[in-house]
């Protein structure tokens, strides 16, 4: 029943561009993009409890790798095959970088980790800005006309990546690795005592969470045709996935998806229908503040308080003890 529902949803989404106009198709494409980043973020942020504020680093690395590789004449002349290779390479570079930055970053915890991961994003931004010879600096990079991805193609690819990201989280959740991640999040000491290699598990989650994000960076870049620091390494790009995951419910399969859809709906509604004179980041910020204050477990858990059961409830609600009555 559940599977049938998901299959129908997927088919509807695949066919949707036939009925929807350009604007709504684009809105859906942006939603898929956010789903990819939010699910990937949550693999580390939710299931491991490490708040990675620098998810956009992997997005930017994927996009820049793709664009730079397509400047190599040999690859460029391969046409769409070359573009596919470049996007794949972008994903791999993102995943490889994740494996590398895991060494310093995973020595940190809690606030230090959050700040450190955000610092990495800022570092990358400074590098890209200040190496105009390679990255185009503030002028950004354009892609040759032949490699431009049409809306339909980009839509399909990002839908696939979004579905893949959800599937990835689903698989990880059910694997031995998912169990190990949960154990580490609850108590590193206890996890170590039963022989779990904390670093390897966390590093793996990091890499898995960077790969689809990197691929999405390449696809998105080829669709827009232009990238610069604010497009692919934007601070908002890095924080929106966190906000989406928190809004929906972090550490649960559908939380990030629900959150992403809601955020995008708010954005589209504000811009296209209400036309309120409020910049969208202001709304995101407000949403973030309200969730953190009013429903720290996210909207899915908040609405279905009684219905969330078993493993999922245990994930969503870490045991809260009253600290002190003051």
């Amino acid at each position: 029943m559940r599977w049938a529902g998901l299959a129908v949803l997927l088919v509807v989404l695949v066919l949707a561009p036939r009925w929807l106009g350009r604007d709504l198709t684009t809105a859906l494409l942006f939603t898929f993009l956010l789903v990819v980043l939010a699910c990937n973020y949550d693999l580390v942020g939710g299931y491991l409890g490490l708040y990675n504020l620098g998810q956009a680093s992997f997005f930017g690395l994927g996009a820049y790798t793709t664009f730079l590789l397509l400047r190599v004449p040999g690859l460029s002349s391969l046409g769409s095959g070359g573009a596919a290779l470049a996007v794949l390479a972008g994903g791999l570079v993102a995943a490889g970088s994740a494996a590398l930055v895991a060494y310093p970053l995973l020595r940190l915890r809690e606030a230090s980790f959050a700040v450190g991961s955000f610092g990495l994003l800022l570092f990358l931004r400074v590098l890209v800005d200040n190496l105009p010879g390679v990255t185009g600096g503030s002028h950004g990079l354009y892609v040759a006309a032949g490699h431009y991805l049409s809306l339909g193609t980009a839509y399909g690819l990002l839908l696939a990546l979004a579905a893949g990201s959800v599937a990835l989280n689903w698989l990880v959740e059910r694997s031995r690795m998912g169990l190990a991640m949960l154990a580490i999040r609850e108590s590193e000491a206890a996890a170590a005592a039963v022989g779990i290699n904390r670093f390897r598990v966390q590093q793996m989650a990091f890499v898995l969470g960077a790969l689809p994000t990197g691929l999405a960076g390449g696809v998105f870049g080829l669709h827009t045709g232009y990238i610069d620091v604010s497009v692919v390494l934007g601070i908002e790009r890095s924080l929106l996935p966190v906000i989406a995951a928190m809004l929906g419910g972090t550490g649960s399969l559908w939380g990030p998806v629900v959150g992403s859809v809601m955020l995008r709906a708010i954005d589209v509604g504000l811009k296209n229908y209400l036309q309120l004179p409020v910049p969208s980041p202001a709304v995101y910020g407000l949403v973030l503040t309200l969730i953190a204050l009013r429903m720290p477990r996210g909207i899915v858990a908040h609405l279905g308080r009684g219905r969330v059961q078993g493993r999922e409830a245990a994930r969503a609600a870490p045991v809260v003890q009253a600290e002190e009555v003051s």
Partner: protein
Amino acid sequence: MTLQLMTELLAGGAVLGGLYALMAFAFSLVLATTHVLNVAHGTFMVLGAALSTLLVREAHLPFVVSVALVFGTFLLAGWAFEEGLIRPLQGRPPVQVLVGSILVTFGVAITAEALLGYYWARAVEPQPIFAVELGLPSLRVGGVAISGPRALALVFSVVAVAVLHVLLTRTRLGQQARAVAQNRVGALVIGIQPSRVARTVLTVSVAAAGLAGTFYAVAVPLNPYEGLRLTMVAFTVAAAGGIGNLPGALWAGVGLGIAEVLTGYWAGAVWSPVTYLLVLFGALLARRGEAVRGLVR
């Protein structure tokens, strides 16, 4: 490099460093006493700079009056900020307070930044720049020229740090704040009210941020989107000096200011942010035991 140039660079670094130290001092005190990591600290500075620009440049008020107005406004804002957004987090376990405060204040920072940039661009000028121009003459000290505004900013940060120091050591609430920072359980046991301390510390730190922003804008112009960068600098200085270690914040702030100015001179201004990021990573990794985690017991 001539001696004069060197002196001027050091003076420039000291101005920046003094402001950094003040930022980090207030930021670190909040973190140590309340477990609140105030991501909006830099945003409050930017708002302070914006308000002073409005008062001095647009409303033509005397600088002294505008400083008093900024101080009063930010005391109120700090109180409201604590009451509405931080108070509800208290009572959660310390780690949850920390995480919750990061999210809440991140939201505040993003919202305030976006609204400020957007409406300032519409109502005041299309390219928002917050700068308080006072037309102060340069000072000549032993053959070295120091710009008047920078000297004023330096004097301000020295005075402000001194005032904060006196408040912390000579007043009962200040003493209680230090006690809470050093040992929360010990403070609770002897009847200190952590909620009262939290309110005072947050209010004072927001007011200090507003004033720091004012004097920052006297020395160096700011734009609406620099809040997060300033918070990162405050965090860097606090982490390098040791969270809750106030003399440490002072030295780290001045050191970072000078390092940034020297990097800017030798490698170009665009590279100066690299200095603080490198210091940040160094401090985080070197102090990972105590920097932030050690607070959360």
